[in-house]
């Protein structure tokens, strides 16, 4: 059976890729996609810990389901915001959207 650490390493790698996408990409849509990657990395962790440590309790799976739901709604809201900003300012570059500064 594949040891738990592999899953954890996969999840960490996925998280780092997502983090890089969030911090490094200029396109806001890509940033959103990075966030999705990070959430899914967390899901991998949740499911892996559930399977290896507490397979009798359903909490791990339920938590993963909740994360899916949150991720889906976040994507919906985030995309709607980005479209709205695009209509206003004709850009989706995250660096240019700096209205909220001093």
């Amino acid at each position, binding site marked *: 059976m594949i040891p738990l650490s592999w899953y954890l390493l996969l999840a960490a790698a996925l998280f780092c890729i997502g983090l890089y996408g969030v*911090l490094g990409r200029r396109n806001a849509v890509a*940033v959103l996609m990075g966030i999705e990657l990070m959430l899914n990395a967390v899901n991998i962790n949740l499911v892996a810990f559930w399977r290896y440590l507490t397979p009798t309790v359903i909490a791990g799976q339920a938590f993963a389901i909740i994360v899916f739901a949150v991720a889906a709604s976040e994507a919906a809201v985030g995309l709607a915001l980005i479209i709205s900003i695009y209509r206003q300012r004709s850009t989706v570059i*995250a660096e240019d959207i*700096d209205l*909220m*500064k*001093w």
Partner: protein
Amino acid sequence: MPTTLLIWLIPLPPLLAFGLIVLWANRSPRVSTAVAVGGMALSWVFGLVVFAAAVGAEHLGAEPFASSIPWLPLGTEVLRIGILVDPLSAITLFFVVWTCLAIFVYSIGYSNFGKARDPQDRPGLPPHAGGVEPLYGRFFAFLSLFAFGMLTLVLSDNLLLLFIGWEIMGLCSYLLIGFWFGKESARKAMVKAFITTRVGDVFMLLGIAALYSFTGTLSFHEILRSPDTLNALAAAPSGVLGLSLAGLIGLLLFAGTVGKSAQFPLHVWLPDAMEGPTPVSAMIHAAAMVSAGIYLILRFFPLLTVGWHPGEPLTTTMLVISAVGAFTALFASTIAVAQNDIKRVLAYSTISQLGYMVAAVGIGAFVAAAFHLVTHAFFKALLFLGSGSVIHGMEHGLAASSKNAAQAMPGQGGPAGQSGAHAGHDHVDPQDMLNMGGLRRKMPWTFWTFLIGGLALAGFPIVTAGFWSKDEILSAAFGTHTLVFVLLALAALLTALYTARQIGMTFFGSPRSPAAEHAHESRPVMLAPLVLLSVFSIAAGWAGIHHEFPVIGGWIPNWFEEFVAGALAAHPEATAFALPPLLTSLVVSLGGLTLGFLIYRRLPRGAVDPLARWLGPVHTLLRNKYYVDELYAAVVVRPAYWFGETFVYAWTDRKVIDGVLHGAARLVLAVGAWLRHWIDLLIVNGFGDLVGGATKGAGRMFRVIQSGRVQAYLAAGLLFAGLMLSYMLLVRP
């Protein structure tokens, strides 16, 4: 209606009239006249009813009409006000209501009621050409208030209420002397009168206080009718000049009389008071107010003469009073001889006659003093009103003669020569007797009534009231104190002399100025009071003819003596009749009148006073009233001004008090500046600025991290989350 209630009501109508005129009617001469004269007439009716009741009452002295109510609670004591009519109040009330009513009616004419308002007249100045008085209502309001004060004084049953009436009259005197306040002389005279009488009033107040603190009451009846109280007062030493308490209080009260009745040395205000309108001179300064002073010492006669019995030497208090009175009588009559102003002559004659009464009280002649008080009030009011009529006629003559000269109206053009004289007319003094003469034919009514008044003043034998009362004083003085008798006899001689001089200069001879040529008789409303008063000036004397008088003595009972003497607890013996004072009285009166008439019968135009030629410097001294005014100015007035201006104002006020104030202000300013500099600016402001500045600096410092870039925030969040995680996982355990 019970008599006491009626007595309460006597003073009230004039007070009501005063209030009504002041509040509502002062713009309307018609209403003012109706209210004031109506009020006075009501008082007059009440007064006469009460007088009749008093005359009809048995033993009025022992059981007077009296009633009182508690008024002012003071600790355990209660001051009461009340009314008292005993024989003395009754006769005073009698002449007060008559003279007041006469003067009210006369004032209607004097203030030119019913004439159109002259547009040139100004309030505060006499109407100069026969227009209605500009402040007509105010005049009657003051007169009414004055009548209220006098009636209150006469009817009061205690010294406090008497003093209140006394001071109301003082105020009215001030207001009425200065009624023509546009004249500077009137303003000065009003202040002079007020302050001079105030000197006497202060002493009087001290006397009242002393009396109250010793006896615990101010009621006339309780003090003066009780031999115990009087003897206790006489026995108690006062610690001043060896006088008994009775003597000291008597002298203090007498000081009030000296001020109010214008006795030497406080006589200076009365001649100046002639600046007021003539009815005022008649009312206040002849008939009523100056009589109040005499009334006071008559009222306190038992206190003043306690310990003295007829035939004994006079006590110190009585000596002082008789000396002041006799001296004033002679002193004032010498001045009157040298005056040319018709009203001033009368003013000095008033002082002199009041001196008679004071001297009479001083020598213990109670009834004689009261008698002279009554007759004098009538004939002096008559003389003053007569002189007012003369002045009025002269003013009209003045206006008529200047109009003739100034305006050559069609058909009425004056002779060309008069226009040259016109310049002189404006300076003609209508009160100067040297400008009069020959008015006998122009003003017959005024002349005859004035003659009656003048003869009464001079004591023309048998016919006039003045003779009987003056004779009684002289005979009382003859038996008591020879020096007083001599002084009074000399004064009587001079009185007759200046009266004849006044009548001669005013009415006889030929007119000495155009004003006198154009003078005309006054209106009937002014003449009626003159006629009324001249009746009294003759008839009032018949009430007191001595029953041992040769020939006519005993024809008419000596009612006055019997009635008034009842006011005293110890009924005094009637003065013994003696021939020498009677002969003296006859000689001085007739001699003085004849002498004066011979000299002044026909004074030519532009003449100097013959007396001035014969007496020389003495006449100058007399004309200048012995320089008493100048003496007071040098001794009292100017030092007072110096004290006020140099000491109080320039030194105390400006230097000391202002200096202290400015010093304090400067100190406070310095302290304030120091506090501001070191506390406010440094600490309070510094702290405030520090808080604000620090906040601002911190904001400036931290705002750079607020870049608005989402990824920067995320990176920072990651960094701090990592640090926190590291701390919790690596350092904490």
